[in-house]
């Protein structure tokens, strides 16, 4: 009896494990099928280097360069904001803050992660956008800059919670070892604790970037949705994700426009894959010191 129960449970766990792999493979192969069929009719090089995204004009032009630029610009801006704030906050929570402050701060940060992105987008639209418009004297505040600020704040909770775990799991003995050699508290934090926690912190940053690249709704509401190559961070832009979200509803299934959106998905996948790959390389290097 107990043996067969064991067997059943093992089988269920096995099936669950396999299912998640199968889903990923299915999603990927579907994306690949729809996306690649687009490149039969439209060259890949032209697709990523053409400056014009006019999928619905009489002579359609599928150039996603502006979309790639938009995504990269917003992501970079968001990282510049989120990484320092996130890592510093994590350091503060795990190493410096007194216990009472730590508990409050930690639950607040976790609460921040639970806010739906649409809500953040909405709040950003009515707060950040007018402020940015007035401060920098722009024709519109719907810009990559506003998007970066808001996405930055969306990535902060992810970065904080995961790096905080990484920092706290650094054995206390490392700290003692450095302190006993006469290092100050700050030197210990910087050279020992941060260094030992670096793989975890990099993972946290990667997940944060993942959230920023994949974010759709909020970014659509706040960046102005203009598909042209931006000249500065204060230009309105459009990201790859928001293009897919905004246009999928208006396409004809199986048409060029429909397939082009899958091709965008494929490029997006490629970019996140490269980001993860670079992160892995970095982690591997870190392990060997």
């Amino acid at each position: 009896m107990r043996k067969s129960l064991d067997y059943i449970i093992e089988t269920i766990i096995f099936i669950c494990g396999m299912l998640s792999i199968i889903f990923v493979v299915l999603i990927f192969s579907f994306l690949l099928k729809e996306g690649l069929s687009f490149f039969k009719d439209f060259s890949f090089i032209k697709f990523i280097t053409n400056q014009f995204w006019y999928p619905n004009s009489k002579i359609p032009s599928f150039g996603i360069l502006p979309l790639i630029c938009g995504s990269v610009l917003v992501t970079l801006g968001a990282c510049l904001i989120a990484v320092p704030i996130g890592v510093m906050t994590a350091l503060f929570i795990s190493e410096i803050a007194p216990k009472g402050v730590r508990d409050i701060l930690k639950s607040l940060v976790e609460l921040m992660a639970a806010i739906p992105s649409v809500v953040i987008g909405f709040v950003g639209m009515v707060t950040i956008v007018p402020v940015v418009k007035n401060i920098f004297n722009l024709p519109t505040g719907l810009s990559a800059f506003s998007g970066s600020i808001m996405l930055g704040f969306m990535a902060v909770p992810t970065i904080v919670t995961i790096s905080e775990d990484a920092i706290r799991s650094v054995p206390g003995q490392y700290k003692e070892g450095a302190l006993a050699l006469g290092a100050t508290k700050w030197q210990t934090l910087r050279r020992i604790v941060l260094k030992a926690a670096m793989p975890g912190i990099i993972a946290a940053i990667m997940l944060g970037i993942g959230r920023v690249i994949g974010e759709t709704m909020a970014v659509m509401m706040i960046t102005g949705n203009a598909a042209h190559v931006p000249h500065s961070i204060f230009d309105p832009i459009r990201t790859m994700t928001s293009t897919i979200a905004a246009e999928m509803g208006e396409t004809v299934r199986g048409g060029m426009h429909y397939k082009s959106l899958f091709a965008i998905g494929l490029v997006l996948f490629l970019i996140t894959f490269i980001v993860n790959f670079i992160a892995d390389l970095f982690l591997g290097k870190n392990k060997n010191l």
Partner: protein
Amino acid sequence: MVDKIQIKNLSCYYNKKCVLESLTINVVKNEILSVIGPANSGKTTFLRTLNRMSDLEVSFKRTGDVFLNEENIFYMNMEFLRKRVSMLFAMPIPLPMSIYNNIIYAPKRLGLVNKKSDMDILVEQSLKDASLWNDVKDRLHTSAMKMSGGQQQRLCIARILAIDPEVILFDEPCSGLDPISTAKVEESMLELKRKYTILLVTNNVKQASRVSDRTAFFLMGKLIEVDKTEKLFISPKEKQTEDYITGRFG
């Protein structure tokens, strides 16, 4: 006989619970003083107070004074004190970097060496003094985490020697080591005594009798007895000491 460290009426508390009670003892220059006693006797607290590691804990309170070369350590700069009074822990703690950087980390930061050539010399000398040079000279730039336990502990000793302290505190340095590594560590302790003053906290009574010049016996936060090692082990004055070293309790 010069007193290196004088401890006067030192009491320590964790969360207001007294763990060390009005301790007065001195440590002579270039001696090995062992501290033995059962768990909770306050011996580790005693050691950690001498380089103010225990001051890092919020719930720790102390009264009394400790003088290093007649200078009160509680008025000293904490980082500078730890350069002069260094500590070796029970578990070997290599920092998460290469062997070379483990040794050079503290001297570089304290400004003891600046030039690359001086660093190389210091690393080599420290490793030789800790009898580790031959084991690792070909892989100085690989991670220190990949060494064996005994090597790691000797690396920690080399790291301490590199900052040239005055006093070295050993906190059960051999509790995780095999007998051969233990013998090596003990050997280097006897070697080091010529230059440094050593305090050794140990659960291993035999180890205390092997290496130390004087031995102190702690029980329940109180110093019961301190004397020349041979004297304490052969004819202890107190009954509790005798019971402990003959293994009747503890």
